[in-house]
């Protein structure tokens, strides 16, 4: 949920060093330790969905590249393919595989594949402390000898083993490890490898990827070979499958596992360990009875911290207190005294002034809300609770043609829809990514908007908050259900690793919150200023009242809101939270009744997402799909808002 540009250009005259490994093994922490550059670190698989680069001070003119998690090759999801593609395209000075020490066998399955690529390789066995807590004692020297590569035990969060790792990277050499496959596979491998084009990885590894049906390797070869040659290669693969009587990928994987088991047996000494509190709590968090109860406590805690403390108490201190009584009156007085041109004073501190509207909205209303949300969210991310939500919500997402894994981008969307759109890469099929993006664009409010909504509805009644939640959830489920039936393709079944529950590290949560707030201010303040300027110009030229008249049938007639609400929806085009803040200002002036507040909140929640999110959807799915999503979302928001007004009137809400 960090909207930083992920790929920073850094000169790499000394070569690149790739960090690869399974999901959630601490690659991003190792990246931070090696480069000093912070990238988002969390305790759930799929935090990194794009590559990040940073210079390596320990190896002048080299860059370190952090990659999305990779379970194995062939790659299955879009984020996994990014890593596979990178290995095929970039000649690396060294590859550092970061592995989870307590899951050594799974780690080694990937190590063997990387070793076959004949890339200079180092294995960092991370989270050694957790392995020891699980009663595992690993003979890293034995492992190093078996694989022919340096194996460095690390605890990256404590910086343990990093100096040794840096030294090993500087001296990294290609592994001499060579696995022999069954005779039928070996018979095909040799001639296939001979015909492979030059690539950064060994011809034998490339041929193995082809035989295993790796899509990234297939695309790479497709760009370098004539179609007829590629057809010949495909025919060889089919012949091999016929001869084996099963998929070559299965046979290759079985051979690797046999080797992995042999190495692991010589390396692991296991003693019995008691189950930790985190493990017990982890089990309870997905339990059929305790799971929902814990979720209820988490949601209530979030509501109290963000919706009550952030959106009401802190906002009151900031908006009514600091800005309303101190800063704004002083600035207005000072500017009126020193600037003799009323138009300029009005542009700065008038009703639609850059300071009184733009900055006051951004700093006094939104900042307290997002600060509390980012802090609470960081704690949730680092605890490892989010993947457990996937288990609890799986049945709900099934209705919408997805599986529980889709809850990760949805929850991230509460922080920032733009980044959440990027996170849909962890979903396996294009159809699932499309469905998730549609739901994100439609019904997932970002933290700022959510905070404003909670604050406004909290001021009305708790019942109003429940009605809002029920309407938005009903729209989400209905649209998801319908879209799942209209978008062709099948749902993939849920398979998700649940990381151990951990006590969040305060420093990481604070650094992450600060990074997110920095991003937020950089993105929000210019847009809020632009929006204020736009509204000021429209007001001065009389266009604002004309627009309000033009939208009157929709806003006043259909939604039953005061004419001034048109302005809020206009601001909503820039950012939904900006629009919500405009409505907040209306409520503060006593211009919205309880039912009007509810209708306005539902409509603005379902309104089109911010410009940045629209651009991201277009980048991921193209402009035609984006236009189609907007064409569904925009009218639907007003349709649902109007229908809710009718329903509220019929049931006697005022």
């Amino acid at each position: 949920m960090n909207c930083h540009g992920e790929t920073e250009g850094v000169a790499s005259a000394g070569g690149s060093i790739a960090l690869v490994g399974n999901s959630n093994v601490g690659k991003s922490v190792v990246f931070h330790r090696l480069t000093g550059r912070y990238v988002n670190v969390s305790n759930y698989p799929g935090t990194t969905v794009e590559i990040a680069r940073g210079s390596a001070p320990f190896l002048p003119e080299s860059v370190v590249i952090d990659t999305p998690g990779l379970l194995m090759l062939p790659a299955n999801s879009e984020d996994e393919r990014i890593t596979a593609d990178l290995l095929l395209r970039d000649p690396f000075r060294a590859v550092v595989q970061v592995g989870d020490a307590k899951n050594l066998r799974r780690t080694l399955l990937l190590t063997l594949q990387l070793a076959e690529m004949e890339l200079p390789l180092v294995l960092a066995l991370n989270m050694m402390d957790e392995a020891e807590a699980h009663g595992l004692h690993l003979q890293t020297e034995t492992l190093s000898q078996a694989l022919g590569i340096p194996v460095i035990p690390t605890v990256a969060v404590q910086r343990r083993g990093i100096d040794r790792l840096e030294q090993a990277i500087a001296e990294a050499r290609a592994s001499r490890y060579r696995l022999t496959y069954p005779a039928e596979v070996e018979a095909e491998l040799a001639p296939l490898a001979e015909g492979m084009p030059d690539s950064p990885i060994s011809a034998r590894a490339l041929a193995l990827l082809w035989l295993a049906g790796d899509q990234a390797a297939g695309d790479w070869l497709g760009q370098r070979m004539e179609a007829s040659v590629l057809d010949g290669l495909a025919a060889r693969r089919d012949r091999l499958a016929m001869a084996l009587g099963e998929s070559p990928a299965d046979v290759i994987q079985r051979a690797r596992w046999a080797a992995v088991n042999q190495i692991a047996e010589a390396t692991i000494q296991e003693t019995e360990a008691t189950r930790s509190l985190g493990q017990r709590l982890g089990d309870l968090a997905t339990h059929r009875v305790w799971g929902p109860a814990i979720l209820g406590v988490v949601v209530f805690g979030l509501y109290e911290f963000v919706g009550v403390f952030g959106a009401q108490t802190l906002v009151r201190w900031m908006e009514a207190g600091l800005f309303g009584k101190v800063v704004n009156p002083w600035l207005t007085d000072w500017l009126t005294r020193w600037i003799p041109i009323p138009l300029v004073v009005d542009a700065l501190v008038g009703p639609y002034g850059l300071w009184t509207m733009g900055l006051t909205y951004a700093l006094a209303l939104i900042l307290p809300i997002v600060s509390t949300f980012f802090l609470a969210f960081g704690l949730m991310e680092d605890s490892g609770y989010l993947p457990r939500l996937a288990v609890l919500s799986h049945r709900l997402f099934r209705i919408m043609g997805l599986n529980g894994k889709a809850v990760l981008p949805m929850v991230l969307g509460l922080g920032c829809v733009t980044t959440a759109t990027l996170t849909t890469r962890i979903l396996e099929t294009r159809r699932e990514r499309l469905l998730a993006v549609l739901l994100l664009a439609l019904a997932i409010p970002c933290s700022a908007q959510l905070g404003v909504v909670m604050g406004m509805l909290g001021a009305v009644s708790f019942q109003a908050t429940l009605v809002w939640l029920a309407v938005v959830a009903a729209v989400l489920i209905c649209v998801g259900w319908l879209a799942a039936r209209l978008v062709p393709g099948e749902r993939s079944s849920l398979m998700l690793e649940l990381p151990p529950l951990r006590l969040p590290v305060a420093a990481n949560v604070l650094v992450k919150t600060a990074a997110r707030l920095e991003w937020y201010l950089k993105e929000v303040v210019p847009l809020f200023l632009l929006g204020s300027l736009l509204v000021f110009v429209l007001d001065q030229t009389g266009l604002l009242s004309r627009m309000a008249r033009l939208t009157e049938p929709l806003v006043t007639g259909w939604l039953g809101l005061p004419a001034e609400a048109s302005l809020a929806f206009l601001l909503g085009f820039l950012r939904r939270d900006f629009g919500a803040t405009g409505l907040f200002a209306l409520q503060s002036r006593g211009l919205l009744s309880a039912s009007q507040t509810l209708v306005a909140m539902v409509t603005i929640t379902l309104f089109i997402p911010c410009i940045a999110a629209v651009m991201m959807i277009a980048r991921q799915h193209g402009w035609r799909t984006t236009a189609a999503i907007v064409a569904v979302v925009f009218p639907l928001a007003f349709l649902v808002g109007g229908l809710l007004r009718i329903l509220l009137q019929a049931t006697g809400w005022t």
Partner: protein
Amino acid sequence: MRWQGGDGARVTLADVPAGCLARIVAIEGAPSSRRQQLRAYGLLAGDWVRVVQHVPVTVAVVEHTELALETDLARCILVDAFEPWVPPSAQPRR
């Protein structure tokens, strides 16, 4: 509650009572890519896994990883034996 295969019944991970250890015998019925992913997580023939729960989805402990699996997928994992799991703290001291 201890069961050893041999009566010809098709028993899958979805049938193993929560709290039991089960021995994998094969993965059948899932798409090839899913089979490979399951194996990459360590669900291999002859290996024992611990079933934590089945509702709302099946959760199994493989090596030292907890893996959430949709019931349909758990039904593709055939087992040939299962027995109750005894936590280390509850095991008799030797």
